[in-house]
């Protein structure tokens, strides 16, 4: 799997570190925000960090059943 970093171009997924569901970026501290997940089997918006590149946090939309990357953008933009 390769992710197209908006700053560095298309890179191997091993350069990135995974956090999880992009809704976590909202930073809610209630029970549901911290613990509950939609966990869909299709398109999933999720946070990755390009730790071995520009170190930017990215919001990736990916089909978690096929690993097709649908979109990549800088998180929070």
């Amino acid at each position, binding site marked *: *799997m390769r992710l197209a970093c908006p700053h560095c171009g298309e890179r191997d*997924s091993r350069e990135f570190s995974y956090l999880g569901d992009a809704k976590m970026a909202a930073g809610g501290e209630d029970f549901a925000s*911290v*613990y*509950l*997940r*939609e966990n869909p*089997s299709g398109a999933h918006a999720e946070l990755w960090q390009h730790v071995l590149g520009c170190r930017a946090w990215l919001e990736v939309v990916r089909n*978690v*059943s096929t690993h097709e990357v649908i979109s990549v953008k800088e998180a929070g933009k």
Partner: protein
Amino acid sequence: MRYSALEIVKQGFSGNRGWKPLWRDPAPKSAYDIIIIGGGGHGLATAYYLAKNHGVRNIAVLEKGYIGGGNVGRNTTIVRADYGQKGNSPFYSHSLKLWEGLSVELNYNVMFSPRGLLELCHSDGQIESYSRRANMILARGDDAEMLDRDAVRAYAPYLNFHAERFPIRGGLLQRRAGTARHDAVAWGYARGADALGVDIIQNCEVTGIDIEAGVVRGVQTSRGAIKAGKVGICVAGRSSQLAAMAGMRLPIESHVLQAFVTEGLKPFINTVINFGVGHFYICQSDKGGLVFGGDLDGYNSYAQRGNLGRMEHVAEAGMSMIPALGKTRMLRSWGGIMDMSMDGSPIIDKTHIEKLYFNGGWCYGGFKAIPASGSAYAQLIATGDLPAYAGAYRLNRFETGHLINEEGTGAQPGHH
């Protein structure tokens, strides 16, 4: 048909034409007292214990594929009871005891092989932490031994003791732990449940859960609607999809865990070895193949296949601990989808829908849990209460703060 040496002789004299399929292949009836969704190890065990321990006969197990085709046939077959947390340790202790009698209980050889489990320690801190864990295991009545470096070397001489990156300082050995044949566990429980009247319905995918006024009434399936008095979800890997049919969101993410097997070799690895520091574990199947694996790939996945990066990492870790592995050839690799819960421990509980029950979140510990999970879930569904050994696996523990977090990694399912 009860299996015995006499039966083998009798069948031998009649040309082995009398053996019957292990279970019937019935069409679904229009209604059941209890429906278990998911014909994996846990679902079949639940149906078996519902019939055996609680006398319920009108039960269906609905399986979207075929028996033995899901995670029960895709795991690395390790059975152990080396947990430290209060909520986990009585459960896995009970499960190991059930494993020890399982072949006799089911009249079916599940090939449980208590060949031991060795957890390697590489630092003073690890020795202390594992000694503490060994004492906790001993205190609840199970077995654990702390080995020093020389004892580990005598027990598993093929490990790397020369200029190794992580020198072995000792290890925790649980001799009653081991492996079992995963297919036989599924088949044995299926046969046992079928003999007690349970309908095992394959190729029957649940597409909806019928709920009226907060009470479950039945399920919609690819083979039509089926009414039910009670419904138990038991589909680890796909739990979030099933729960969504009942309007629930779960504290679970689905991740892929890879496993690998080499060509068949002569007896080489005599035990199960956990090399935790390197994220690597290994055992040898009765066919001779070395079965090994490591950590999750690390991101949400339903793909049932893993990435090359993790495969390289596992191979490197294996080579660093057992250099002789470099001479073997890997035959196959595969990936299974894990329900990774937010604290790394499972959930067996009622739901907010009356008569709808949930069993899932087994992370990568589901196989060893099968007998205890089935008997606990059966008791919950039949009586409304969990047995004491599973009493901590409540769905609301994330809300009340009663987490069971063996790894202490927080609400990060991919890190357990």
